[in-house]
């Protein structure tokens, strides 16, 4: 592997409060130094990156890679490549595959497929309960030993308060977070979009904001009680943001993520019964979107995650009631974050890099999120001002289910480097 000198870029490393125009040198897969006048090792590739941002690679702690079992939608290889194309150097794969990742050999399979993909790093998330059925705890110790970085029953929320309490307590032994999809099942049952004026007009069954907020409150109370780390997935409502803000003030061990679609779109996107606007949690109201943006600004929401959820064309080409929830997100996340959050002044560039790299690494205890000398060189180079049009047909993902097709965004990854090796270059 040739040494690589990225020369003259705007280097942003939130782990060290660094934001300056300088050089980054990568040697033997590690960050050899950040700064001017480092010299150029023999045989090095020297790349002029003036006008571009050089940052620790993006980390997505909420991705559905569909393998094993639903390889027509995505494979670990195609998902890891889509991630790399989106500027991500690491993704965490949710366990709601078929069969679910609820035992050590399944975790090992994800690790092996991730390594073979040779793109973004792939970290498995294990199931909370066997088969994600909510009845019996999975063997967290073995899951972690095999490589799991967190546990979650995402897609099948942990309904039982007792089970959640036990999971939070037991997870403490292994130092991993329990990531929960917050949804009170009896309130959400049968719902296909946000309960509000648009659902009323379209005649679609709604999912009330309270269905999420009740479980956010429950999880916060249980985290406070057990001191286990609860991570709240894809927060979508103003009420959730308020609850988390209060909990953090009280020192409860809670972290939270939000998705690009929830800081970009409202339930109006469901007009016309567009199944690419059908996701769970659903797109909410303008004041919810504003609350998510404010939560990302003040740190109530720690992390931007994609909830990348590939679905086959046929599955979305259905009546709205019958179409599955979810959209792909790996290849639009950075562009949306730059366009909506940075472009409209909600976040600075260093704050954005923190929410998409440094903090997710910290929350899930992962490698990355830093350009400190000596760490593995997981690096993204992105063009913060480049305008481009989302063309779903060109996605590396196997799926095309996005509501952002045809959108003009500002900013995209131009080079993604994992362990010093370039895995994507525009």
């Amino acid at each position, binding site marked *: 592997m040739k040494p690589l000198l990225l020369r003259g870029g705007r280097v942003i490393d939130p782990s060290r409060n660094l934001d300056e125009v300088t050089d980054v040198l990568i040697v033997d897969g590690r960050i050899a130094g950040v700064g001017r006048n480092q010299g150029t090792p023999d045989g090095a590739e020297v790349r002029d990156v003036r006008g571009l941002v050089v940052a620790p690679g993006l980390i997505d702690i909420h991705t559905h890679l569909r393998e094993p079992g639903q390889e027509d939608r995505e494979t670990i290889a195609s998902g890891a490549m889509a991630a790399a194309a989106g500027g991500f150097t690491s993704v965490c794969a949710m366990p709601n595959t078929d069969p679910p990742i609820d035992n050590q050999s399944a975790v090992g399979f994800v690790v092996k497929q991730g390594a073979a993909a040779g793109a973004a790093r792939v970290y498995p998330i294990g199931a909370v309960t066997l088969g994600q059925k909510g009845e019996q705890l999975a063997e967290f110790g073995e899951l972690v030993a095999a490589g799991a970085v967190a546990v979650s029953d995402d897609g099948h929320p942990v309904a039982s308060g007792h089970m959640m309490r036990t999971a939070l307590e037991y997870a403490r032994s292994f130092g991993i977070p329990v990531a929960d999809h917050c949804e009170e099942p009896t309130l959400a049952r049968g719902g296909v979009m946000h309960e509000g004026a648009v*659902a009323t*007009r*379209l*005649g*679609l069954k709604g999912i009330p904001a309270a269905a999420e907020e009740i479980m956010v409150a429950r999880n916060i109370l249980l985290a406070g009680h057990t001191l286990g780390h609860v991570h709240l997935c894809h927060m979508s409502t103003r009420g959730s943001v308020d609850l988390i803000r209060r909990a953090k003030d009280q020192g409860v061990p809670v972290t939270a993520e939000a998705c690009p679609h929830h800081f970009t779109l409202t339930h109006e996107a469901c007009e016309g*019964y567009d199944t690419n606007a059908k996701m769970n949690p659903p797109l909410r109201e303008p004041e919810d979107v504003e609350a998510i943006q404010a939560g990302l600004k003040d740190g109530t929401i720690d992390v931007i995650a994609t909830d990348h959820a590939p679905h086959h064309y046929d599955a979305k*080409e*259905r*009546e709205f009631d019958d179409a599955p929830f979810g959209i792909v997100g790996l290849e639009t996340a950075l562009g949306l974050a730059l366009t909506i959050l940075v472009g409209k002044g909600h976040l600075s560039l260093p704050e954005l890099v923190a929410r998409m790299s440094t903090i997710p690494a910290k929350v899930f205890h992962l490698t990355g999120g830093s350009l400190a000398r000596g760490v593995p060189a997981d690096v993204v180079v992105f063009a913060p001002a480049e305008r481009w049009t989302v063309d779903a047909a060109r996605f590396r993902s196997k799926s095309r289910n996005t509501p952002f097709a045809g959108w003009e965004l500002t900013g995209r990854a131009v080079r993604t480097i994992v362990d010093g090796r370039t895995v994507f270059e525009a």
Partner: protein
Amino acid sequence: MSEPLGKDLLGLEPLSAEQIRLILDTAEPFKEVSERAIKKVPTLRGKTIVNLFFESSTRTRISFEFAEKRLSADTVNVGASGSSVQKGETLVDTARNLEAMRIDMVVMRHPSSGAARFLAERIQSNVVNAGDGTHEHPTQGLLDLLTIRDRFGRIEGLKVCVCGDILHSRVARSNLWGLTKLGAKVAVCGPQSLLPRNIEDFGVTVFRRIEEAIEWADVLNVLRLQLERMNAGFIPSLREYYRVFGVTLERLAAASHELVILHPGPMNRGVEIDSRVADGPHSVILRQVTNGVAVRMAVLYLLAGGRPEQAEAAKRGREGGE
């Protein structure tokens, strides 16, 4: 104006007041066709219409079929059971296969909101929404409007209250759109657990008590309370529903003025409506059913390219289409 309604009739929301009035006016001459000994005009001769009913229906399906036959169209009825839908065929594939047999129109009833629009965007044929989920049932809304207009000579300024299970009612939504567009004052009344969120956005008043609604309204459109709502926990019992929300003769008698009562059917006598009301002088319920055929003839005629001003001629037996 070669296509006064556009390709499809998906709901009353997308229609202008002028388009709604056009349908009602076009229905007038068609009323008479059904009163004749020989109930047939050749207007849609040679047109093929498929009635695609994925949900059970008696009144609407038969009404459409009569409308089609009295306009001399060739019709085929397809239901979910016994069709390829049971074998897992998608809605689009079913419709495209029918279209490959060269049909002109699809009349569809479907349990999912938005299904009619979904279909209309994917096939060439005209699509008439005969009820999609809890979204719209435009021809029911139109026949309700026609029946009210028959009785009062106008819609504008009338006070109309839609009563009952608004949450799950496509009839309610079509009524709210149609009535507000034509200038009626509109209200809803029902248990809060059966009123959808943000219903005020339709520009309607909400009455909590049926007595208040009766005192306010010129017209009540009383919705059917589906029996399964009790099992789903929306209301405690049908008995209490009748006691608290039932439209009874006593309640109507207590009002300071006469009301006109509509019901889209099928009725649950003794649940949402008292038999003495349903069968009494306030009721125009059977008139609604009669008007349903005329309204559907008007819709089919206009979608097939018929000229509104030629509807009178079409009724007399000459070709009305282009």
